[in-house]
């Protein structure tokens, strides 16, 4: 054994294998943006504001983690916002009617998982294209949330639930801790488990994966179910903050999530993506918004800046990768 080891080319240390060059690029982007705002906005670098940024990024990060897994598998999930809405109104309704918090939580996560399952089955077994499937469920799920509530918000979410998602431990918001835990779990899933390897394989070459015995349908469905569950979790963070669940919540969440994943290095062609990158991508978007708001920039211009940052990030990505 030792002679084989001696002949081995030096492998990069463990840290680098999970923190790629691409992630380093995303991190540099984040540092640049933070540096610019630090120069322009007094107080941007304060501990309080930095924690604020993380908290404001947490919902998008949570959604984007699931989105990253789906994108890696070669799909896309446009239905995350409405999935979150269904889960939110159901959970809030149960809570308001006095159901214990753990039960309501599980019900909410369960309905999120079910929404993801429907997407997954339509993609993996019926063989429809992911974009079309989730475009369809985007409308369908939204309609269900609206019909279920008659279009009215569910008010009066109990304090116990709210403090669970809106409280903080040692000054760090619970939502940030929750998303950090989820991110770690997603990282383990992608890097350390067979299903993570299967996601990369299916997204990279579905035909070859099939021949190699990879469970294609199970892999895809897993990604959509996780995406659905994380959409539900994200909705908890929002209703924890607002104390109410609106059936229209989560509008356009899918776009922010896709943007975070793409900035983080996920390829919409599938087979490529990074958990660390996605988290950094979500923080980049959050820091942008936070900084621009502190600078009193109008919402219209904020939207413009967000759009440009996505395009610039993608152009840098393209330029540094070179052609083919």
């Amino acid at each position, binding site marked *: *054994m030792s002679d*084989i*080891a001696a*002949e*081995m*080319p030096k*492998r990069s240390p463990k840290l680098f*294998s999970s923190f790629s060059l691409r992630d380093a690029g995303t991190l540099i982007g984040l540092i640049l943006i933070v540096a610019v705002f630090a120069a322009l906005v007094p107080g941007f670098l304060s501990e309080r504001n930095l924690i604020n940024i993380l908290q404001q990024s947490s919902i998008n990060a949570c959604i984007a983690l699931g989105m990253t897994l789906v994108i890696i598998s070669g799909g896309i999930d446009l239905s995350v916002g409405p999935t979150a809405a269904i889960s939110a109104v159901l959970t809030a309704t149960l809570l308001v009617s006095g159901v214990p918090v753990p039960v309501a939580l599980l019900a909410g996560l369960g309905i999120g998982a079910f929404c993801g399952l429907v997407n997954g089955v339509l993609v993996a077994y019926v063989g429809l294209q992911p974009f079309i499937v989730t475009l369809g469920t985007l409308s369908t799920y939204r309609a269900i949330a609206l019909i279920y509530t008659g279009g009215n918000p569910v008010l009066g979410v109990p304090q116990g639930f709210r403090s669970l998602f809106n409280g903080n431990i040692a000054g760090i918001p619970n939502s940030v801790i929750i998303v950090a835990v989820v991110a770690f779990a997603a990282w*383990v899933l992608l890097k*350390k*488990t*067979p299903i993570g*390897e*299967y996601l*990369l*394989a299916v997204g*990279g*070459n579905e*035909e*070859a*994966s*099939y*021949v*190699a*015995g*990879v*469970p294609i349908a199970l892999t895809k469905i897993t990604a959509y179910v996780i995406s659905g569950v994380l959409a539900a979790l994200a909705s908890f963070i929002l209703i924890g903050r607002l104390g109410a669940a609106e059936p229209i919540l989560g509008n356009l969440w899918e776009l922010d999530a896709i943007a975070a994943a793409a900035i983080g290095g996920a390829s919409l062609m599938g*087979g*490529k993506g990074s958990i660390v990158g996605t988290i950094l991508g979500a923080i980049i978007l959050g820091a942008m918004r936070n900084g621009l708001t502190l600078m009193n920039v109008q919402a219209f211009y904020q939207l413009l800046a967000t759009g440009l940052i996505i395009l610039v990030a993608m152009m840098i990505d393209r330029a540094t990768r070179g052609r083919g």
Partner: protein
Amino acid sequence: MLRPRSNRNRSRSLQDRLSSFDESTEMTTTARLRFEGITKTFQSAKALSDVSFSVKPGEVHALLGENGAGKSTLLRILSGVSPQTSGEFFVDGKLATFKSPEDARRAGIAMIHQELQQIPNLTVAQNMFLGHPLKYAGGLLVNRREQEKRAAAALAMIDPSIDPSTPIKDLKVAQRQIVEIARALLENAKIVAMDEPTSSLTPAEFESLAVVIQKMAASGVAIIYVSHKMDEVFRICHQGTVMRDGNVVGTVDLRSAVQADVIAMMVGRELMQEEHKTFVKEDVRVDVRNLSSAVTHVRDVSFTVRRGEVVGVAGLVGSGRTELLRLIAGVDKIGSGDINVDGRALKLTGPRSAIDAGIGLLPEERKREGIIPMRPVSVNMVLPSLRKFARVGIVRHSAVNKSAETLLKRVNLRPFQIDRPIKLFSGGNQQKAIIARWLAAGSEILLFDEPTRGIDVGAKSEIYHLIENLAAEGKSIIVVSSELPEVIRLSDRVMVMRDGRIAAQLERHEMTEQAIVSHAVGDREPNTDSSMQEHAHV
């Protein structure tokens, strides 16, 4: 067209005619294409170094060498895809300075790629005019009718049966290849470079391609022909430039050269014509009975494979060889019949169940069905056996790496970098990784589909040795191959397929190229087709 109908005499006479043409023009013409000191460096590595040779009008010039010798790099320079680092080349004596493929096209250079670069949903004519359609109404509209007329005229010279208005996706690969060549004719190319044009052609199709090439050459076109199939090269090429590691080893006159010498030049060592070795044990491991496919034309196939046995499968393209392997590997659905392994009938529900039964498929189209391009070799290797490497749901990467190091060392992966994405390896090394994949999975039955297709001569012999080693270990092996010398070199027994059925099973003493071919084409009198063995690619 369906039946290979070449014969030695006819091709000789064509060649004679061509060579006389050659001699008569030799003195009066300048080189159609001349490379002078072409050098190409990538970062620090030299891909080409000081390449010089020339091609006369009307000459079919083979570019020979193993994968990585620099042939493709040279063709990319010629076709304007990437410029040389230093050196010059001349088309009809004029210095060529191409900034894009379009420049090269305008200068009369046509490339015919190995991997067809066509758009499946567009018609034949649309593909032939891709990028520069015929316009009318002041350039606003495309004149489809005229395009189709001209496309038909160009196609008529090769294969009039192809309708210019059919979508490309409805054509067979060989026909698509012909469309590419017709496109070169249409553009009145002065220089046509063909990169492995015959890798998917049947012998009959090769014959018509040979005729087309000779016609083109006779009209003064210079043809650069890249192929790993030495018999073809010797049949249709006049001159050959042998490259190795980015250098020109020499240019030889193929009409007088000996094949073994040329191969020796290519690999830089003597590649001996090796003897078949047999490792057949007594016990039958695979027993296939009356197997029929639910999705293809494979019907009523029965055979056995013993431990340590290598069974070859020969047959024309479309005879059901690949489909038979896919059936055994659980990729295609079984219609009826049984596959017994070690006396137990398999219930195949997909590739997974076949893999669990110890069956491993090495697909012909590695890029499409074999590899996950962006993932490391090690991951590509362990993909089917990941579960074995997982403990409480977590893959132990140290165990994966240890296994990858051992097995990839055994198959002699080069360069030995197990963390490198597999797409960066040559075809031969990708194939080695797929062999290692099934070693890792503990497969005892290995199904090789065209194991050396698109693989250079050096790696080819490595693959042969690996297959022999596996047989020596007692693995049962089925090899589908279109190259008869390969089938005969490797097989203890050959099954010849025709129209989805097994037409014959030949033992070693009956195993001649002639016998295989006559069974493959369904010829009752083998003697009438005596020349088929000449260019053995069934």
